[in-house]
């Protein structure tokens, strides 16, 4: 240990102060969100989360339709995106020829670089008309906007992120595992299954991270979901998500209660996404630490 000089201490404190600022900011977000939603919290309490009515005119606010829409759209997105993202991760890390690896991963990252608003634009003018044709064919009201469009576009947006995390996980699986499977006569797919099994926790974590992303997605969703606060299982019906209602109505909020209600929704979004992210990082971290080689003890137990 070096002798602690005054400069050392100053350095530590100064840089530490800036780091503490970061800490403060995060705490501040939670704090500020709670403070700015106090009116709504006090007025509606827990019934805020179970009321279906969202009527700014009469001052009645219930967040259930938005919770419904957020979860519904994110689950659909995940059901579509997870297998595809895993398939991509498996292909790039286990199956593709070496020369194709870089370009393929670059291309999937390109999907991630497209901003949400561009997805939304494409969604309105290209995806929605297609869905509208589908609805005509299926006999449903030809709106085009609705849960299906939102789910589809969310799925596309979530794929690149999920697949790159999954690829990281697969990279962390020791090759000795696959070799053991091959040596026992496994086919390619069976060896891949062993790798997937080894990385099971991490992969679940990757999928959950994608889910967290989908929960908070705003622009693309609000442009194709129809923005109607109703609770229905119909894929073709317009619905509403938490992020979308905040984006649309924040600047329209005429009175404080309205604003606080919207911010309370933001608070819930904050809490949910933090929870999902923490859980998934825990899973991924626990898997990574397992694949690191254990230290070899000099003297094993006699039972060996």
């Amino acid at each position, binding site marked *: 240990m070096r002798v602690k000089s005054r400069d050392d201490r100053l350095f530590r404190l100064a840089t530490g102060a800036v780091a503490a600022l970061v800490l403060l900011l995060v705490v501040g977000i939670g704090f500020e969100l709670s403070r700015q939603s106090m009116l709504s919290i006090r007025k509606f309490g827990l019934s805020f989360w179970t009321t279906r009515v969202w009527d700014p005119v009469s001052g009645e606010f219930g967040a259930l339709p938005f919770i419904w829409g957020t979860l519904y759209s994110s689950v659909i997105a995940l059901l579509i995106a997870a297998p595809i993202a895993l398939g991509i991760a498996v292909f790039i890390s286990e199956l593709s020829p070496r020369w194709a690896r870089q370009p393929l991963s670059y291309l999937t990252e390109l999907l991630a670089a497209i901003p949400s608003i561009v997805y939304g634009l494409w969604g309105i003018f290209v995806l929605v008309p297609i869905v509208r044709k589908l609805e005509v064919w299926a006999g449903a009201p030809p709106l085009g906007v609705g849960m299906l469009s939102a789910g589809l576009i969310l799925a596309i947006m979530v794929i690149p992120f999920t697949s790159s995390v999954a690829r990281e996980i697969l990279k962390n699986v020791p090759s000795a595992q696959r070799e053991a499977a091959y040596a*026992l*006569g*496994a086919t390619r797919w*069976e060896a891949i299954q062993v790798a997937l099994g*080894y990385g099971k926790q991490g992969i679940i974590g990757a999928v959950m991270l994608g889910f967290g992303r989908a929960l908070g997605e705003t622009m693309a969703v609000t442009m194709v979901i129809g923005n109607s606060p109703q609770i229905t299982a119909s894929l073709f019906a317009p619905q509403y998500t938490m992020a979308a209602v905040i984006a649309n109505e924040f600047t329209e909020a005429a009175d404080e209660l309205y604003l606080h209600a919207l911010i309370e929704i933001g608070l819930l979004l904050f809490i949910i996404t933090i929870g999902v992210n923490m859980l998934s990082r825990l899973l991924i971290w626990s898997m990574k630490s397992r694949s690191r080689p254990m230290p070899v003890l000099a003297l*094993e137990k006699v*039972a*060996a």
Partner: protein
Amino acid sequence: MTVIDVEPRTSNAAAMIMNEAKIHVRNFDFYYGPSKVLHAIDLDVPDRQVTALIGPSGCGKSTFLRSINRMNDIIPEAKAAGTIRIDGRDVYAPGMDVVELRRRVGMVFQKSNPFPKSIFDNIAYGLRLGGMRGRRQLAEIVEKSLRRAALWEEVKDRLDTSALALSGGQQQRLCIARALAVDPEILLMDEPASALDPIATAKIEELIYELKDNYTIVIVTHNMQQAARVSDRTAFFMLGKLVEVGPTNTIFMTPREKMTEDYVTGRFG
């Protein structure tokens, strides 16, 4: 209906007609991309004996071992030329079923690599690949394999616990049991005890001695004392060439080649 091969455990008709060894290698070359790492290897591995492959690091003995069960196929730039015949059948022939080959030729690695599953599921893995389902059938073979690997007594009460909880030496014996479960005829061992302490090593060597009654064993080792203790025949590799092969005693006491003598007496390598 059992899926385990019921072929007779003696060398088959073709080999007997040609009077060949269990593993017959002729003029075998191996390339990693442009560089040639094995040169014209000629080697006969007799049935139910232990053949040790010795030589300094990088001499190609592990590469050669992995060529026998075509584990090198996994490496994209690898190429093999020449013949390796097991029971008279060319391993690199176009029609050869690699998956079946690897069932008949088992492999144990330098560092034990148990799956993150229970002891039972590790051993049963190869069997389940082959389609075996019945719990009782599986349990029978699991017990038999663990006994063969001298691990049964130590783990019989905790077959459903994680294999990763075993000590290094136990894990290695587990991997041996896992390889034995699919009933191979040949066992390839790549420095199986190099990561273990002396006591565990001694147990593995004891095991090899017992196993050779029923299996043909080829073992790569950098430990010459181990080779001398455990093997019937020894092959000395250097720089990708097979310098000399013969009965272990001969190789160590009265080797023909000077290079062999230099190596086994410790003058280099």
